[in-house]
């Protein structure tokens, strides 16, 4: 339990982070993300100390929160403490109105992607001791803020749905005497990384192209399409159909291979490579029709 500075101090946001209504701060500088070099040493140093976090606050309904601001919290450090642990502690002990999505605490539900020290990260798998203090925790940039760290995910889901994200080889087969389709271990390996996506939205938020083109499918949706397009269980015709969706104006060709999505992906999916590969597939398909 902390004995010091249990109350949050409110302060104005230090500079105007380009708030437009409820637009969250833009991610202009994507530096190293304020990482500390020597992890073990830093962890040992923090034992018995508190961690200083600055958390973005906004609520369209509540007076005093309608203008975005940052609140400071000092949270007692414990070994293994993550960014999510820190905001949960701040909420449960200091301010129950502090709002963020979270559920599984183990990097599989994808609820808690935040903008931490200038980089998109999953709160639950980011050790607080690896970060420079004060740790600045903001909602994902380029998405509308609903409240505090909660952003509107509807646009992200819409883009995911645009690529027809479902297996299309056949209708649901009759279940009696059903046999599995065969797939080589190599082909399964080929789609393995793409199938790990947890829909956290970190990639979309980090992408400059998506920020400027609201219709751009974005790295997550293209990766989802990759998973199906590369799966040998779907036939060639369907693959061609998928490539046609992907090569439309706001599809794969928009990607300028800046690798920001790949850099922030908490599941280490090589998103940019997948997009590049789909560009090559699209070219191959078009050559075939020549």
């Amino acid at each position, binding site marked *: 339990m902390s004995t010091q500075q249990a109350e949050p101090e409110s302060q104005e946001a230090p500079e105007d982070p380009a708030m437009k209504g409820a637009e969250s701060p833009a991610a202009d500088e994507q530096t190293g993300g304020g990482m500390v070099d020597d992890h073990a040493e830093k962890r040992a140093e923090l034992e018995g100390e508190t961690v200083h976090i600055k958390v973005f606050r906004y609520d369209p309904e509540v007076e005093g929160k309608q203008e975005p601001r940052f609140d400071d919290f000092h949270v007692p450090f414990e070994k293994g403490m993550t960014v999510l642990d820190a905001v949960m502690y701040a909420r449960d*002990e200091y301010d129950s109105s502090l*709002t963020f*999505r979270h559920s599984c605490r183990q990097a599989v539900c994808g609820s808690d992607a935040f903008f931490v020290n200038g980089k998109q990260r999953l709160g639950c798998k980011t050790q607080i001791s690896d970060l420079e203090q004060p740790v600045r925790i903001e909602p994902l940039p380029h998405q509308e803020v609903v409240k505090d760290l909660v952003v509107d995910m509807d646009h992200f889901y819409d883009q995911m749905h645009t690529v027809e994200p479902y297996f299309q080889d056949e209708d649901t087969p009759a279940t009696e005497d059903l046999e599995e389709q065969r797939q080589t271990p190599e082909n399964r390996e080929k789609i393995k990384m793409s199938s790990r996506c947890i829909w956290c939205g970190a990639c979309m938020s980090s992408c400059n192209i998506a920020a400027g083109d609201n219709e751009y499918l974005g790295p997550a949706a293209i990766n989802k399409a990759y998973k199906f397009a590369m799966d040998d269980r779907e036939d060639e015709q369907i693959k061609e159909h998928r490539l046609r969706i992907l090569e439309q104006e706001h599809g794969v060709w928009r990607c300028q291979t800046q690798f920001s999505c790949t850099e922030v992906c908490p599941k280490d999916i090589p998103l940019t490579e997948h997009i590049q590969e789909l560009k090559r597939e699209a070219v191959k398909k078009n050559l075939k029709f020549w």
Partner: protein
Amino acid sequence: MYEHDVIVVGAGGAGLRAAIAAHEAGADVAMVSKLHPVRSHTGAAEGGINAALQEGDDWELHAYDTMKGSDYLGDAPAVETLAKNSPEETINLEHWGMPFSREEDGTVSQRPFGGLSYPRTTYAGAETGHHLLHTMYEQVVKRGIQVYDEWYVMNLATTDEADPNDRECHGVVAYDVQSGNIEGFKANQGVVLATGGPGQAFDHTTNAVSCTGDGHAMAYRAGAPLEDMEFIQFHPTSLPSTGVLISEGVRGEGGILYNSEGERFMFEHGYANNSGELASRDVVARAELTEVDEGRGVEDEYVHLDMRHLGEERIMDRLENILHLAEDFEGVDGLVEPMPVKPGQHYAMGGIEVDENGQTCVNGLYAAGECACVSVHGGNRLGGNALPELIVFGKRAGRHAAGEDLGDPEIRTGYGDDVEDETETDLPVTPGDAGVDTSGGVAADGGVTADAEGVLERTVETARQRVDRLMDKEDGVQHAEIRAKLQKAMTDYVNVFRTEEGVKKALRLIRECRQEYQDVYVDDPSRTFNTDLQQTIETRNLIDVAETIALGALVRDEFRGAHWRKEHQERKDEEWLKHTLISWDDGEPSIFYRPVILEGENKTYEPKERSY
């Protein structure tokens, strides 16, 4: 008011499967979930799906293993339904594109799991649940099924006849987390609860923060009994600091457990001379804690799980996810050092009492998945049996709710002439409603005369008043304090090892939580995304559910499956081949028992000593 034929509450594995099935049966289905479907905790399941797919294996072996694993408290009709249907349901997932791990010949891979006589756990890396969840959500998108995500269901709209068997569920009341609006959802044919487990009743759990037993509590207050709640599975391998799960797949692939003295204690101390690390989960969890209690734990807290000898290639191929979890959440590199593990609350074998068709005793109310108790798992669930339960019984509940005829069930539900009342146990405190927060239960006045709309409207009104009351109150106690106290009481006294005195202490502490809850208030004044409000309502649900777990643990004075009692260290088949049922009865819980069904289709499962 929204209106659909079938309303599915919760959008994890069971809910998605139920929705797809009801849709295929021609119903207008909607899913209402406090999380977007892909956030559901099914996604954290790692191990796999038990299904007798290969030649040499067959459903009867699967049923036998499950019945033995259940310590003869599973109901044979449920167990056999699971074992028979799991193969086709698993293959069906494959046809929906689920990326299962593959053998050289292109068939789906299967591996050994604890308590199985054949390697029948079908898997997709160590992230089977993630793939199952996403694959089924894809199918929901494909079918255009309506999903109300981030809508939190607060209560069921149920009539209030004196006998729950006569009641009817007409829908649910939910609030839109984003806006705070409270609305009724009328279900013309049925409501399927698929709300997952109650793991947040404990403070060291592998379960997500969202696993708060909402469906359990709502069904209970509406009159459907909760069954076998005392049977809580503590998974032997959770990470000590966070409770994050390390899959049984590690032991399935050959991982070894060591104590602080470097002994392979499962064999060397005789806990399971045949199966060792792959004994049933309850056996391994007790063995680990015994090692710690006898001074052979590492740092007096945990044991080591070593997989280094499997080699990097095999680990990367089959267990890569485990490396990430150990690194991210415990700072341990599983390729170069053993991983610290200890038992953590993982799964509730009990739940809302249902029959093979997913029906509760309340007409129109169904449950499937972890929140339900069919009962497939009895006293202990085998690893790899949760996911097939989701798809097999999720599908059945969805079909039946949509009006398909699945035949008459063999399992009975609700209070009836085949039950026996509890008379002996002295309770340390009065359980049940403490009086002020009358949020639960049934809403309608006049029972039979109430029409569906009227019931819905009244339930909506009650919910609005309740939220206003919580929001208007200026000070008092906050939910986080009560929840922490409840979780600590459960982990201290209703854990792997249980004593009469400890469980009674837990019941007293739960009573205190109930009383403190009378003074609960929501500090956040906003209607927008008010998680303070949501967690306050969830906490009430956790109190109701925790109390049934402790009550069950107190009355069952025997040792069966995951339920161990210090004063009663033997299984008492003469007395206890029966399910514990706890019914809310308008706030005054009553306890009764229903005999277990051991007669299967072709044979009777005679209780045998359960050794591994």
